[in-house]
């Protein structure tokens, strides 16, 4: 009964979409990189850097959209570092990605401490406002109205990325580079440039995903605020079979369970320790990987560095 009441309340669906937003953006970012054949485990750190840099820009007086842009640029720069290491030098994508995560997050924490040496409570900004002018739309109005423009951006990014991948020559080339780089090279395409471009663009999306947390969901930068969301995005891409539409569905499904566990945790009848509920997102991610394992259609060249003329 209680669960039914819950699903009928707009507040639940508002919370779900809010939880889903950074996951949608992050998953799309990972998807772009992996479609071009490169695993990007830098996401966890890039999200930290995006959250911090976007917030800092706004704190220093920039308008909110500029903050998002700054987060995208910073994310793109860390992506460029990952691209140089994995595409141009052909280094291990696993280790390089972990290195980028460590570097991006430690640099953010270092910069935060240098900028604010003696603060106990994190300084705050005024985040994006909710779009209550949308409340009038039937059925979905109250849910969309409770969101900020960043959620709208995330929802629009899904068809945009799908269009890019499946309806444009660049998208075709990008997918080809992820499946068979030698053949792409034979067609006169530059594997190096396409992969670098995909990683930088994907990492920019990851940076924006991080900035959602400081510019929309909360109004300050906290340590450990990303808390594994990046890794969850990496799992969601496999669940989504590397397709933007399914990535959206996966992120929403995941957010549904996350919002549900939050409510169950708060409801008075909770009989389990609260940690059990908090575990659910991570366990779900692992389960998603296991369930999809048999059917997963990995991009054929994923994690294989390409060196011209080398077999």
């Amino acid at each position, binding site marked *: 009964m209680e669960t039914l009441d819950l699903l009928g309340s707009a507040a639940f669906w508002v919370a779900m979409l809010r939880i889903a937003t950074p996951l949608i953006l992050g998953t799309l970012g990972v998807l772009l990189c992996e479609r071009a054949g490169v695993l990007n485990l830098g996401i966890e750190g890039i999200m930290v850097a995006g959250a911090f840099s976007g917030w800092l820009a706004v704190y220093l007086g920039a308008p909110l959209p500029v903050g998002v842009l700054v987060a995208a640029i910073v994310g793109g720069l860390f992506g460029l570092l990952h691209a140089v290491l994995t595409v141009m030098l052909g280094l291990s994508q696993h280790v390089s990605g972990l290195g980028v995560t460590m570097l991006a997050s430690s640099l953010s924490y270092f910069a935060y*401490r240098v900028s604010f040496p003696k603060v106990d409570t994190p300084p705050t900004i005024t985040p994006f406002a909710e779009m209550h002018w949308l409340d009038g739309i039937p059925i979905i109005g109250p849910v969309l109205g409770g969101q900020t423009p960043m959620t709208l951006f995330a929802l629009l990014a899904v068809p945009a990325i799908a269009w890019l991948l499946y309806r444009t020559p660049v998208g075709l080339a990008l997918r080809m580079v992820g499946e068979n780089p030698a053949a792409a090279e034979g067609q006169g395409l530059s594997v190096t440039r396409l992969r670098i471009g995909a990683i930088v663009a994907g990492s920019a999306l990851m940076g924006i995903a991080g900035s959602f947390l400081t510019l929309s969901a909360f109004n300050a930068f906290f340590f450990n605020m990303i808390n594994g969301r990046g890794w969850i995005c990496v*799992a969601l891409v496999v669940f989504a079979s590397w397709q933007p539409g399914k990535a959206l569905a996966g992120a929403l499904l995941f957010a549904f369970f996350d919002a549900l566990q939050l409510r169950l945790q708060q409801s008075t009848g909770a009989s389990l320790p609260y940690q059990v509920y908090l575990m659910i997102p991570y366990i779900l991610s692992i389960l998603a990987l296991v369930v999809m394992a048999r059917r997963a259609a990995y991009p054929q060249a994923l994690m294989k560095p390409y060196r011209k003329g080398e077999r």
Partner: protein
Amino acid sequence: MIGAWRLERRTEPSRTATALAPLAAIAFTLLVCAALVAWAGAPVGQTYALLFDGAFGSRFAISETLTRATPLILTGLACAVAFRARLFNIGAEGQLYLGALAAVAVGGMHGGEALDWPMPVLFAAMMAAAALAGAVWLLIPALMKAKLGVDEVVTTLLGNFIVLLIVSMMLDGPMKDPMAMGWPQSVALASDLELGKLIERTRAHTGLLWAAGLAVIVWLVNRYTVFGFRMRAVGANAHASKFLGLPVTRVMVGTALLSGALAGLAGAIEVAGRTSYVTLDMSPGYGYSGVVVAMLAALHPLGVVAAAVFVAGVLVGADSMSRAIAVPNYIADVIVATALLSMLVAMLFSQYRLRRMGAA
């Protein structure tokens, strides 16, 4: 411009380059981080001097560095062993915590009252339980990789978050220390089980000898046993190994058990040597730093000991330095991360060289 230079594989890996790689990587790292120190507004030379002094400058500094190096040797070994066989275990953090929980479950819960075993037996049981806990936890993702092809990096990473919640649950529930006044810590280990001091009146304990001994054992296993050979073969080329009739899945399982056990022991030795109980912050990311230690050592078990002392020195030195000068101690994590990436690049140039296109 991108195509003007290209990497060319050396016919033989350059020995000089291999030997110089860690030094070059560390030199480059210190150079990059000097810019950050300058940005924080501190004199670079003095900052590095304070950092070095805080890590190795006194008896106390050395003892602190060795205390930190102890778990890092073990998590570094855990990563090195697994990476050699291309099992990317990034879950050493979680395995360490589970090892610590298991150690306390065996050696603390009963406080010598319920379990009336002779101390040496109880000590062995405590260590075995910790090793087993770590090993079993890694076995799950290893099997998922071997049987289903699920990427182990993501599953081991996600596992770390699950373990921390399990620890938190245990500290709230069955393993809660009733005397801790609500402070989240577990019951303490029976005091007879604690490790002896290595240096009097410091925190350095004999766990360091355990860690170093295990490094030698892992090196011997790697070099002189059939299992070691198989691990290296599977890592070098799993496909060819299968073709040769090597039991690839079994080797993978064996590697996972060894790697997880080493990380689990790190937890037990931390509890027995330093903290004597489990807290939620007993490891400041030793599992993740273990990845860096393993890479800096080029996955060599004996190199792991040296790399662990280096990383521990950076962590301890930065803590001490940041108390004296206005540079946040997060510089340590930046140094460690930069060292990892620089080392990757440096290792590449021991196998490849840059050639200008068309010059050949």
